[in-house]
């Protein structure tokens, strides 16, 4: 009997074709990450250097008020942004799915903000929320002299101002993904549910949403990636202010590495970001991919 060709050479063309991407992933992503983690244990200033200082950078990091504020802001923004964009996105999609008139027009309107970059979004909302130019000024112009609305200048509210701009920009995309998912649900399921006399909201909650699991996973990944890398919106909208009220981890990393000329500290902060992503990612990947192999 002839031996079967080794699995290694099976489907050779595809494997050769993916070599460049594998190399890029290994060198750029994995290599870069390892390099960053290693150098986070040095006291590198403007240029990287191998002077080891152990965990000093991490001690300073967790003793820095600005970093703690950044983490807190990211948590607030992350949780609320996740919940609201999923809820609003799904509700909009469900409304859109009622065979309404001018669906194309509404879809375009809702998706339009997504075509704008975070920088533009940030600037637009900075002006809208600025007490001297924006909403407050307009309402006062109408005659309500004592009306006050300046979330970006109030340290307790500023992060919600950013959240609002982020939602305005992002929910359109979530809506489109959800709408695609809803359109993928077989008409017969709806008919069956109607025959059984199940109310529409129950059909959505207990039949349609569980069936849309893949769409939800995709959406979740897209939203989460956007949350962790939150940077440009903050820079454009508030610059981290007032004070340090809207600082985020990515901005801390950038400012430390380039403005404070303290690479070691920036590396330590980015390593912490990596760790937090891994903590979220590993259980999820295990659940998602580990399960399939069994079946």
């Amino acid at each position, binding site marked *: 009997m002839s031996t079967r060709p080794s699995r290694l050479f099976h489907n050779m063309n595809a494997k050769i074709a993916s070599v460049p991407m594998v190399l890029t992933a290994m060198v750029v992503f994995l290599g870069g990450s390892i390099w960053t983690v290693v150098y986070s244990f040095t006291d590198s*200033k403007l*240029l990287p250097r191998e002077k080891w200082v152990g965990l000093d950078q991490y001690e300073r990091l967790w003793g820095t008020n*600005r970093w703690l504020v950044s983490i807190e802001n990211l948590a607030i923004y992350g949780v609320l942004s996740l919940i609201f964009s999923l809820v609003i996105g799904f509700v909009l999609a469900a409304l859109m799915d009622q065979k309404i008139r001018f669906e194309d027009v509404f879809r375009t309107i809702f998706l339009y903000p997504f075509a704008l970059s975070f920088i533009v979004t940030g600037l637009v909302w900075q002006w809208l929320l600025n007490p001297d130019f924006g909403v407050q000024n307009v309402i006062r112009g109408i005659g309500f002299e004592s009306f006050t609305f300046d979330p970006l200048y109030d340290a307790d509210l500023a992060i919600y101002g950013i959240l609002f701009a982020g939602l305005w920009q992002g929910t359109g995309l979530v809506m489109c993904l959800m709408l695609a998912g809803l359109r993928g649900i077989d008409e017969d399921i709806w008919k069956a549910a109607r025959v059984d006399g199940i109310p529409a909201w129950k059909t959505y909650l207990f039949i349609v949403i569980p069936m849309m699991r893949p769409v939800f996973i995709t959406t979740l990944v897209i939203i989460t990636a956007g949350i962790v890398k939150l940077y440009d919106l903050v820079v454009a909208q508030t610059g981290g202010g007032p004070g340090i009220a809207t600082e985020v981890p990515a901005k801390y990393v950038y400012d430390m590495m*380039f*403005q404070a*000329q303290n690479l070691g500290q920036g590396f330590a902060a980015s390593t912490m970001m990596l760790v937090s992503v891994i903590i979220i990612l590993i259980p999820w990947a295990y659940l998602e991919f580990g399960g399939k192999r069994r079946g």
Partner: protein
Amino acid sequence: MKMMRMMLAASTAIGIAGGAWAEDLEITHWWTSGGEAAAVAEFAKAFDATGNKWVDGAIAGSGNTARPIMISRITGGDPMAATQFNHGRQAEELVEAGLMRPITEVAEAEGWANAIAAPGLLESCTLDDELYCVPVNIHSWQWLWLSNKAYEEAGIPVPKNWAEFVASGPKLQEAGKVPLAMGKQPWQAAGAFKVLVLSLGGPELYTKVYDEKDSEVAAGADMIPIWQAADEMRKLAAGSNVQEWNQATNLVITGQAGGQIMGDWAQGEFQMANQVAGTDYTCLPGLGDQPYLSTAGDAIYFPLLSDDAKSAAQLELASVLFSSEAQLAFNAKKGSLPVRKDLDLAEANDCMRQGLDILAKGNIVADTDQLISPDTNTQIQDLMIQFVSDMNMTPEDAQARFAEIIADAD
């Protein structure tokens, strides 16, 4: 006569450079406000007159935005021909790593050491006896700019010192004005604070805190009045919803704000608006209290290039930047003081004269850019912007945190 001198200057430069061809040099800087852009155009004109071409690489959004871009271009292997930094410690490591080229030969041939207004300026450009940058101006932070119009409208005399200024605050607020204009960027808050340290605390306190980094002094009784003044400062600045420093200066120019603590580059904005020192606006060096100035400033550094012709042109540029003509034209537009002492400042206005007098008396201290590292500076900026915007943070807390930063400073 002027043309003649220009040509002589150009020919010496070419002599040094060994017969250079016309080269395009890219110069990056963050001089982007109205007054600054007018000033840098003077440099461009002077350099173009040598037959080379000044390719302007202005980066908007203050030095905190511009420096990371410049540094990544230099460390990333795409150096520009020349770039602005505040001389002192910002480019320290780039020089140590050999990414910058020395320009000692031009300085020696033209005798810069004899012409320089304050020797400290060249010293902060020097490493291992080689000169790495051309200081182009002297800037000092310790100025309070006051709007005569705002005080007239409020019906009170223009203050003469910090205490009077603080006292005038409520009257200005009654007249619907913001007493103190301050942009909401960290460097502006930290800058105003170091002005309070030097102008209210005096040079000894300033030296102990920023130079000797004595954390006991920073935590001690001498600093308490400074933090109280900072507390008053943030209350006076509470209503100014602007970001950039020149927007804040504009509030003073238009009389919407009483005053602003800002370096003398603010004067360029007053000039652009055709304001006259003494009648339209008043300046109080050292806040009218302690007549001491810190000699900060901008300098042009020259990254090491592999192209020989461009390297030769870099020396020509260095020579042009230090030439009397370019120094006069640039600094007149920018509102800063020239780095040469052999210039006739017939056109200097009232405020510049006050500054020159203080310099001549030798009442100068090194600027914090030369004393503390960018890392420490960023920590102080973070603290100060938080202090200014968060009224719940007490001066005592802020002082304790400031002392911690000073204790760890390098």
